[in-house]
């Protein structure tokens, strides 16, 4: 989300370097070992790295364990309703394009109840960092099946095992018109997570990041016991997300051209091993709010009145 639209940049007084504490709010209430903690820290690091004023940033979320994140981030935040973070974020971007926006959702939040908004947000391509914390379960409501719960797994609404194949959100994103950024990472790979969020931050347009997230309480067995035995392949490109040598014990690398949509689509449909890194990036897709601001005229007050009068002329009969 690099270039803040130059339409009306807030004048911020202090511009000294910020420390991580400047982005910390109340103490997170997630369970011990929950992957959400790591995402919060990674975000705080990205904010510090970009030295953003806390008041200039807006984080928006839905409802779920993951959606509590804005409470713990010392920026402006909006903790909304289940599935609807993206429309709220779109409203913020449309009206205040100078404010960087982070959207945080759960897998149920984004892929299920918010599915329609998800598809359209990708097409709008608002300039925002969009993170889905995918623990493959509905955690806040205590373990119901989610669209990404693996086939056959037991949850409280599928005590005899799920009925359907899980959805592959990556291939859905890659099928959408105007997709401009897609990456996948995991909470048990903190360095990769950090780099991915930074990359997302630097992208101009909607940076969609699926974060495979450990939920030791309701899905301890997911992702091969929280990543220990989970087959992944790291997508490698000098412009992509760096693969730290330490990561190589978790999986192989694979050369990947994230500028090539066909290649990205091919990678997106392959789930085993799970592709990690930057699948696709096209920085040239225009952002919706910038298209809209570009076509809008902002008359001064006398012109505003003059125009209103001439509109009324059209309806004037005597």
């Amino acid at each position, binding site marked *: 989300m690099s270039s803040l639209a130059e339409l009306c940049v*807030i004048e*911020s*007084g202090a511009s000294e370097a910020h420390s991580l504490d400047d982005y910390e*709010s*109340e103490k997170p209430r997630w369970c011990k070992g929950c992957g959400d903690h790591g995402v919060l820290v990674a975000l705080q690091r990205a904010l510090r790295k970009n030295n953003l*004023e*806390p*008041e*200039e940033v*807006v984080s*928006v979320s839905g*409802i779920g364990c993951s959606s509590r994140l*804005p*409470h713990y981030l*010392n*920026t*402006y*935040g*909006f*903790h*909304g*309703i289940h599935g*609807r973070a*993206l*429309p*709220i*974020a*779109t*409203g*913020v971007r*449309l*009206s*205040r394009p*100078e*404010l960087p926006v982070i959207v945080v959702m759960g897998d149920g939040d984004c892929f299920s109840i918010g599915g*329609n*908004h998800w*598809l*359209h947000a990708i097409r709008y391509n608002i300039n925002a960092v969009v993170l889905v914390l995918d623990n493959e379960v509905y955690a806040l409501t205590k373990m119901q099946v989610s669209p990404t719960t693996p086939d056959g797994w037991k949850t409280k609404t599928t005590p005899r095992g799920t009925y359907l194949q899980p959805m592959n959100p990556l291939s859905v994103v890659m099928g959408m018109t105007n997709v401009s950024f897609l990456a996948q990472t995991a909470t048990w790979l903190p360095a990769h997570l950090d780099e991915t969020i930074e990359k997302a931050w630097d992208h101009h347009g909607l940076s969609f990041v699926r974060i495979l997230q450990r939920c030791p309480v309701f899905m301890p067995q997911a992702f091969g016991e929280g990543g220990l035995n989970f087959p992944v392949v790291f997508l490698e490109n000098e412009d992509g997300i760096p693969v730290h040598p330490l990561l190589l014990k978790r999986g192989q690398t694979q050369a990947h051209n994230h500028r090539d949509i066909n290649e990205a689509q091919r990678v997106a449909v392959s789930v085993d091993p799970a592709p990690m890194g930057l699948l696709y990036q096209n920085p040239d897709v225009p952002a919706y709010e910038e298209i*809209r601001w570009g*076509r*809008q*005229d*902002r*008359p001064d*007050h006398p012109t*505003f*009145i003059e*125009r*209103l*009068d001439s*509109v*009324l002329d059209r*309806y*004037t*009969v*005597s």
Partner: protein
Amino acid sequence: MSGPRLVRLPEHIVEIVSDAGEGAQKAAIAFAQLCAKAGNGLWTVEIIPSEIQPPPHTTGSASGNRIRLAERSQVTNAGNLANVVLAFNEMALLSRLEAGSLADDVLVLIDDQWATHDNERYQRSYREVLDKFRARGATIVEIPMNAETVRHVEDAERGKNMFAVGLLCALYSKDLSVLQSIIRSIFEKKSRDVIEAAVKLAGAGYQYGIAHFEECFEIRPVPTDVSKVAMNGNTALALGAVSAGFELCSMYPITPATSASHALSEIFEDFGGFVHQAEDEIAAIGVALGASYAGKTALTITSGPGMALKTEFQGLAVMTETPLVIINVQRGGPSTGLPTKIEQSDLLHAIYGAPGDAPKVVVAPSTIEECFYILSVARKVAEEFRMLVIVLSDANLATGQQLFDRPDVSGTPQRPPLDLSPVPLGALPYDWDPTTGLSQRLIPGQPGGMGVTTSLNHDRDGKACYDSERNQRGHTMRSRKLAALQKSLTPPSVHGAPEGDLLLVGWGSTRGAIEEAVDMARDAGLAVSSLNIQFLSPLPPGLHEIFAGFRQITTVELNYSDDWEDPLITKENRRYGQLAWMLRAATLLDIDSYAKVPGRPYMPVEIFDEIKRILGDQPGTGSAAEPLLATKGAY
């Protein structure tokens, strides 16, 4: 030939109907503009086929307009039975009889091509329908509209409507040259040939009328110096939104609300605004809410089914005290119901529709002029009280055209720049004034004001909390704002005398017809008055005092109530009109309701008949001597 006799009239109602696609609507628009330009007061109602492609030459295909025009500039409703109907075929004509909208002695102008048409079925039905009308006392003037039109253009289907409007121009003694210039501007974007053919056909219709009508009408406008505008309620809402300073309208198309967004889309970008068509109604309100949270003035426009989808977000707006305006242009329900027709069935949903206790402001414009001004009120209340304001319009206001004084927009206040001044670290996002519930809103970008706005219960510091004391406080503060707003309202004024035998209470667009009925009743010596309530939540002050002046009170609404005569219906189970429920609860008075769902506006005579019925015999409602107070000590 001496030409037609001239008959002067104070007002008239004319309907123009054709098959869908034959252009009666265009003819009516031109005729309405002609009358408006002359200074006649008017009210128009669209006659819309409910299907997109109805079979031609059927009653279901009838499309057109009703135009009520008068000497006085103020016409407040669509009136009673039509005096004149101009029909392109007999089925369109019949549809108006079936709709119950024609006077028995209606003057029928009809295209005579069906009398000798190749299709014998048309010939037969043409004869039968006209016989039916004659038997009722109608005057029939058969006009070779088709034959005359083909003398000027090849395809009569394209042009008959202009011949028709020429006929009306003659019938109402209007100025042909003015009509022709109106036609030129309506067809502005068409080719020269099309425009000239239309102008010529109007002239031909006019000449035919002058040569053949025995009688023409003259409705002389009362001269006025005040500049007037004519528009429909949806356009008035759109222009009102611009003039009230709204900056974003986020919507999803739904009849009959969509045309307001169309009107706004036409112009909004020239005024620094956006119309965002979202992926659904939920997203539409979400985008508006996000924009408002970020400090801009936003609204969403919808109709009943869309309103239903927006309820969860309404709760969010209330909980987070984010200012927001929703316009609901009501239509017939439940479900898809009668999408193009008027109903007032969303009142209780507007007031109560949200999860949990969610106090909202609900207002209803009663005229098209009020549609223009109401958005300034809505914006002010939404921002000052940090509240959700719902504006309830309806299909009648949406598509009806009315003449009103041209708004003076020269004093429109300038939109102030966003106040992003720093606040002390830890400033309270809900610094409720305990006496009013009001608090100052913090806007993203204000240094020091960082914090989360949450849908969870929260206290003054905005942080989520779950204890009973702080839950009670949040509810109390949000509710107190309604009381504070109510204190700032003025009592509504009674139409008619402040006391009498009967008070009719209405809301929204029924006002014009109710007041006209009250005038008829008062002329007939009945002690009846009426009241229109614009603020429905909170209800305005002074209702007890006003109601105390009347022996009986009945609401008049376009929504459902059980009839006292219906099987099984008793005092215990009767469902009342929606405003009646509200007023009964608020006043403990035994307020009755006259509430029906005809899918069209009430005619003043219907209400007049109801007044007579109530003040005459009162089956089922108990005798007039029965005290109005349902509970002792109600005052």
